[in-house]
């Protein structure tokens, strides 16, 4: 057994300190060590985007990062979006636009969109589709996800 290393970082505002194997993936750490199972695993080779979380505000593939690499960082996962029972406006938009079916890819889309909409509060359809092109969905055909983003952008502008 290899030596464990000590890591410490914030997830959704909560500070964690744990000892992990160096090779433990961040996706597995979040899901199985912290029981934050909202981040999903679809491919473990960085293509599908289901595992997308925010690391210091940037969208990253948690399946391609070791938990150890997140030491000292501030992470946000899908569990950090809603405020108690109140959904984030983007989550509301997804519901209203029927932008999810099985919901497995959805957390990854949401986390990809948060920084995108911050940089592009007024995207057109082509820009939206481009921003979404790194996340795979097998259920929706993307059409209602695009609608959800348009609606979410409106809601987020207040």
């Amino acid at each position, binding site marked *: *057994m290899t030596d464990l290393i000590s890591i410490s970082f914030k997830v959704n505002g909560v500070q964690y300190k744990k000892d992990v*194997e160096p*090779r*433990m993936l961040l996706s*597995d750490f979040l*899901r*199985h060590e912290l*029981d*934050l*199972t*909202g*981040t*999903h*695993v*679809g*491919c*473990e*080779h960085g*293509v*599908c985007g*289901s595992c997308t979380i925010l690391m210091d505000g940037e969208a990253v593939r948690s399946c391609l990062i070791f938990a150890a690499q997140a030491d000292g960082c501030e992470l946000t*996962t*899908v*569990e950090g*979006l*809603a405020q108690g029972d109140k*959904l984030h406006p983007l*989550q509301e938009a*997804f*519901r*209203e636009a*029927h932008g*999810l*079916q*099985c*919901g*497995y*890819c*959805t*957390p990854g889309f*949401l986390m990809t969109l948060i920084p995108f909409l911050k940089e592009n509060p007024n995207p057109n359809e082509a820009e*939206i*589709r*481009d921003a*979404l*092109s*790194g*996340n*795979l*969905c*097998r*259920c*929706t*055909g*993307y*059409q*209602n*996800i*695009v609608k959800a983003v348009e609606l979410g952008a409106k809601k987020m502008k207040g």
Partner: protein
Amino acid sequence: MTTQFFGERILRNEDPQLLTGNALFVDDVHLPNMAHAAFVRSVYAHAKIKSIDVSAALQREGVIAVFTAADMGDYWQPCPLVVPPPPIKDLKFNERTQLPLVKDKVRHVGEAIAVIIAESRYIAEDAIADVYVDYEPLPVVMDLEKALKPDAPLLFEELKDNVAAHVIQQKGDYATAKTKAAVVVKKKFFYDRGVAAAMENRGIVAQWDRRAQQMTVWDTTQAPIPIRNGLAARLGLSAHQVRVVAPYLGGGFGPKVMMLYPEEVVLPWAAIKVNRPVKWIEDRQENFFATSHERFQTHTSEIALASDGKILGVRDVFLHDSGAYDPYGLTVPINSQCTLLGPYLVPNYYSEFTAVFTNRTIVTPYRGAGRQHGVFVMERLLDMGARELGIDRAEIRKRNFIPPDQFPHNHEIIYQDFAPLTYDSGNYAPALEKAKKMIGYDSFPAEQKRARAEGKHLGLGIVSYVEGTGIGPYEGARVTIGTNGKVSVVTGVGTQGQGHFTSFAQIVADQIGVDVRDISVVTGDTAEFHWGAGTFASRGAVVAGNACYAAGQMVRSKILKLAGEVLEAPESDLEIADGKVTVKGQPDSSITLGDLAGRANPMRGAVKPGTKPGLEATAYFGPSSGTTASGVHAMILEVDPETMLVKINKYVVVHDCGKMINPMIVEGQVHGGVAQGIGNAFYEQLFYDDNGQLLNASFMDYLLPTANDVPHIDIGHEETLSPLNPMGVKGVGEAGAIPVGALFAQAIEDALEHKVEILEIPLSPNRLFELMEKQ
């Protein structure tokens, strides 16, 4: 009774949980002392196993156990035949099902040979490399025609050949019909393999509680009840001792209804052996080998047409790639055979297929389940016939549609539900007209000419299909009103994103006057409901939905009867709305459903003979045959003549699934189906080498369509009710996926001015370039 919820675009009950990452998927199950499994899988497509040495794996720290077939004793039995062959005259079927763990011989890359149980998934996967399997490689069977040659290597030595099945179905007399034809089109078609690639891979958690003598299995299955029955039988337990839970599933699409997968048989057994809960989660690469595929068929087909384009007859002989085993019977090729007839009058039909064993992963239904192939053949033949006869391609279809007054229409051949293929209702011409209008069919030739003058190659495709849906055997539902006024609806099917938690609630909401949001639907848990089949073949809304409807109606009668007694008013004077029963015109004379439920389960005063306590009812719906949905897809695309890349400018679907429970959910199903159809037609392809090795088992090289590849889809609805169920609904789950291959072929030929003739799916820029060079 007016409906308030049925037919409306009600937002989904399940969304808040899914959106906040709080929905339970199988890999989210964390149990104390849980161990993890990984499977040692064959690296050869065809080989004898001389020996398996697990000693090094057992030495590795953190490995708890390693099991092979030899360890399983009497428990080791071939997995069950899921669907027996239909009662077709002279049918030949060689039943060969997959094994829990391979003993003597592997027949495809990825077949499970041993299972490692360890403290973590990481250690279990490390230990895979420790297991030494001594293989004796055998020659590989890949090509369907070569597989049937007398000197072909045999997958099953006891069979004299690699024939899995042989079936002939016919009606009328094609040979004679052909002699009267003005035109006979004869072609050979290829339709290659693909995978469903749901975003969630398969997974199982098995927990044996030896004190309670209870086995609980969380499984990414679309059919928990048959899994429960199969496991109970195998483990020698009573049904009530086995609970199978299919929680939220990240997509199903068919391969998750295949059962019993080897892993489903091994995990519960292993959990008992090591006396700890055990979890197995498939990874994506494993999914390409271990989860079933669909599609590969080669067809030698001909159509005989009269001078006005009317179909005189069709003859189709095809080979179907079964993969290494055939546990799902003949569902896929029978669907191809039957769905080829489409929405058309085909007076003479000869269809013959041979299902062939090959050294590849098994083939079981995936969204469309073989219908794609039949539609591809018929639509292509009609396109080519139309060209030869100088008839417009939309017109030739219209001329051959079964007229609306010829229903029910019996095609006289046997369908996948073992009944004669009978279309219950249909009205095909209006959908075609609507699709033509929506795509701009009449103005397109001028648009195409203008574009060509600018060097742009636009093409239009328009194709038509039917989809057999809503087959039996049956489903059931139980509706219960709680003393707090909340309602529960429980059914045995599973849910993989198609919105059952909302659509089933909508059905019941109208019956009992309760808001959809106050109805909690339970699916996929065998502890809650004991009888049923599962979610597959576009049957959930029709079969489970109608069971919900019937149970809702029964509860409604109970409500009215009891409320009539309590409020001392005749039932005809009562109305149910907003969770309470009120006497019409007397707003103070009312009782809430919750209070009424309390009254229906009294502490004193016995339940009268022949009655049941509570406001609850269970009902079943078992249709004698399926109901036939239909539709038309149309598309305008542009092909870049240099790169052969394709851009879809416009995509239209006009479909008819009878009455829609929730149009928002229906449209979502069509969008998703089209996206998978586009992937199937132009992006997704499995590349095998001659040794049976899959060369592109990852998303880097197996291309799923992204948001830049799936266009905006315009949807039109037609509504031809089904006479076979009280709600008039038909299924729609597979509609989007079925005709897309045929649509691409037609549109691309049109764009390239018929410089290529397209007889295969999938296409790709590479392939189009090759075809252009060749032709």
